[in-house]
């Protein structure tokens, strides 16, 4: 009945994607996340006018940093959809999951595991 999407996706709620600090994104990787994505309103349809545009910029920023340190900027993404777009939400979740699987686990995690071993 309901669309299924991968189980490894966990949602952190914020009032607006404009509230997502680059810090949160980087911190997540440090804590072992393999990927992070933001889901915001459609562009031009932000509940707070421009939060999602700010978020998009921060996503770009985070990507650059991740690229520089060799984790892979591709692991961060931004999606825009409207609240009635359940199927699209599932589609994006699946897409993200596939992308991350393709890239393999977060290298930090591997490094830390090695260290621990």
């Amino acid at each position: 009945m309901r669309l299924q999407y991968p189980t490894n996706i966990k949602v952190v709620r914020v009032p607006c994607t404009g509230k997502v600090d680059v810090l949160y994104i980087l911190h997540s990787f440090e804590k072992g996340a393999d990927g992070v994505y933001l889901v915001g309103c459609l562009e031009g349809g932000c509940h707070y006018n421009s939060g999602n545009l700010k978020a998009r910029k921060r996503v770009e920023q985070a990507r650059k940093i991740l690229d520089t340190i060799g984790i892979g900027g591709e692991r961060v993404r931004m999606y825009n959809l409207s609240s009635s777009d359940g199927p699209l939400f599932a589609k994006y979740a699946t897409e993200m999951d596939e992308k991350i699987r393709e890239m393999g686990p977060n290298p930090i995690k591997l490094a830390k595991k090695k260290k621990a071993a």
Partner: protein
Amino acid sequence: MSGLESNQTTIRGSVMIAGGGVGGMQAAIDLADSGFKVHMVQKDSSIGGTMVMLDKTFPTGDCSMCMISPKMVEVGRHPDIKLHTLAEVVSIDGGPGNYRVRVKLQPRYVDAEKCTGCGICEEKCPKKVTSEYEQGLTVRKAIYSLYPQALPNTRAIDRDNCIYFQKGKCKACEKFCPSDAIIWDDSEQDIELNVGAVILSPGLERYDAGMRQELGYGRWPNVVSSIQFERILSASGPFMGEVMRPGDHKHPEKIAWIQCVGSRDSHNANPWCSSVCCMYTTKQAVIAKEHDASIQPTIFYMDIRAFGKDFDKYVNRAKEEYAVRYQRAMISTVREEPGTGNLILRYAEPDGKLVDETFDMVVLSIGFQPHKEAVAFAKTFGIELNEHRFPKTDPFVPVETTRPGIYATGIYQGPKDIPETVMQGSAVAGRAMALLSEARGSETTVIEPPAIKDVKDEEPRIGVFVCHCGINIASVVDIETVVNHAKTLPHVVYAGNNLFTCAQDSQEQMKAIIKEHGINRVVVAACSPKTHEAIFMDTIEECGVNKYLFEMANIRNQDSWVHSATPEVATAKAGELVQGAVARAASLSPLDEKKIPVIQRGLVIGGGVAGMNAALGLADQGFEVVLVEKEADLGGLATRLTATIEGADIKTYLNDLIEKVAGHPKIQVLTDALVTGFTGFKGNFTTEVIVGTGMYERKIEHGVVILATGANEYVPTEYLYGQNQNVMTQIELAERIEQSGAEDLNQVVMIQCIGSRNEGNPNCSRVCCQSAVKNALRIKKLRPEANVYILYRDMRTYGLMEDYYMEARGLGILFFPYDPDNPPAAESAENGVVVSFQDQMTGRQLKVRADVLALSAGMTPEDTEELANILKLARNAEGFFVEAHVKLRPVDMATEGIFICGTAHSPKLISESVSQALAAASRATTILSKTQLTLSAVTAEVEQDRCASCLICVRSCPYGVPRINEDGVSEIDAALCHGCGICACECPAKAIELNWYKDDQIICKIDALLEGAV
């Protein structure tokens, strides 16, 4: 204000609203927020009306459901709005101020108190019924809710289709209902409501496309109605947003829309224009193309009626960016190509050539018409109807019916789109408030705030409540495991489960547990915080726990529903989500909702029709108003007009209005006055004004602002205007006829769209088509021998004004469409003008010698650049003010406490300006009626020591809230902050935190969710 009958003893402080569409909802919210009790009587099992069926809406492309559901939640949760669904009014007596209304309630067969909306019954019910909500494209069950987000969200049994009721066997729903909510012996009930005023908002019905069998609806499967197409486009619709043909689920490429189906047809259907279909068609074509770039849309039309704010821009974009093809030609018949399911449309090209074109799909743009029961409905309420069975209303007070104290709004009053419906929803509320102002607050619920425990220094004591949600969660997630896991988490002193946590009895239980265990923070693991958070927050507040010490884990929408195939993983994930929630709950601190006093005085800027009506709207409710007009006299543009198209006398109306305003004890009129300074926030503004020739300075303190600065007639530079005295604008022509009649007019030519719909001003000025028809009719009536020629691009006599267009043709006024690429030309002649143009149908080049050439000059907004700067308000490229939200907040400005009305917002007729003025007054009353306002606690705060005064927050805030204060550091006014948190993230010094979403409160949740990942 309609006078109250003297023998009426008590004025009631309550209002009944019949019809729960967006119009009714807006009226309900405004009234309830202003201290009135509302009874909403809704015929179907859920409120929502037409809007809940739509996918996106023009011209913004916003999702319709996203826009309407917050309003629905507001209506559903408001303590002063009582919903009566499956209900209809059967009789009414009494008078304004005190009506007794008898309402008949159809049995629901489901106990609304017990039903939690789990939907299990629906899943088990064996009987499939065509879904009216999905427009017959799919099925629902015999026990059902109209649509997934229905409100109330209890199910209802459709007796006519239920196997048990029809054959005496089944009862599957009862067997599976976990809440024991089915009542087989439910029966019809009569209730009586005693209210002060009545608002009618039952909407209209959609024209049945099946009436036009030549167009193939119901015959050829790939011919659909526009409302079906909305469902097809909708992501929650039968095809989940994929554009498919119902016939064979193939993806159509060529889609044709046929306009005016059921409208503008006095012979076979309805004579009026339905006003919305040109635009929704454009929207559908654009959205379809967005869904699938290979789609080629074609729209067959007569006139594109894009007369609203920014509508023509939208149409232009559709043409240029989305390659939507507009073909001016009507279709006589839709034939199906045997074998392929494709449809063959024949149309006439401009030169007469007949072309057969094959399409994959055809959409019929159906219009609106009064309900079949419109006459009986009007009789029940004792109101009169016009010849088309719409309620009879006055052009100067378009929401008043013929019976005092009974108002009409929304499309019921006449076809209109969502913004105008919302506007009128507020307008009726304003009218009712004025009538009942003395009884304000007499019937509303007073909620005593409970004493809140101080928990600041306490250790967190967290209680976790895990919900089964019937089988919604429990059938996938092992609740026991989740509860046990919760018990092991830090600070958790209690963990338990409920079948339905939101059910009334569970809430009571929860309160007892909170008290018993001394819980000071609560986590509910259940469904979506969007719909349920507020309920739980209220519950914990009732036991003295600060409501911000609460967190939800959504283990249904984010877990059981979407991972039902892997129950074990889902159970584990539920545990993790609870863990995240517990971690965050532990980090929360209590927040106070600030209260600020309200200055119960309004400021109105602009003394035209709109400004004056807004001022009266407030003053009649007893609020003080200061009206600021920059000219020496009141009246605005309307002083130049003589009569409306209906023939109503504008001069008399205006004089009365000015007299009323000038003489009103609560209104202070400042003429020759200019606004020079402005500070403050909603409820507390201070405005500086320089008044009179003496330039006195005045400081006005007030709680709200209503902007009504108006617009002017465009001064043409085209067609010899100003060079030849026989060339004049429509207003000048009307004045001329008023002064010297039409005796000397033998030939009059009118050219439409002067100064509108061009590069400089891409939009339609909305009033000029009707102006032309109005003046032409006037000439013909004064002097039947006169010939009038109207050269137009699209005749935009929308809504019921189509009647006058028809009348004009009947009287022999000639209409010639012209192509903007081949516009008419004019040259001076002795005592007149010679106008040459082409007749498109015959190709003939015509020259007409005219005594008068009337130019239908458009509207240009008043120059408000300075005012906009002072008040920090946004204007669009043309200079009209930009409202907070085009669709849902058409009279609010983005800055709270400021409202807009009249032509300062966009071109509109007097009746529409009045509607919006009443609406502005009503919206303003939601603030002025309170002595103090409660602000949300979720706002940003600056830790001033850390601020580096970099101004980044000042620039990044979408509402311009942060400012650098006297100490040179950033300061955020909690009264102005919307709580988006953008500034907090942008601040390089990390000096800003958003309450309830502080960095550590988010980070600790991330940590908890990722625990064990490395």
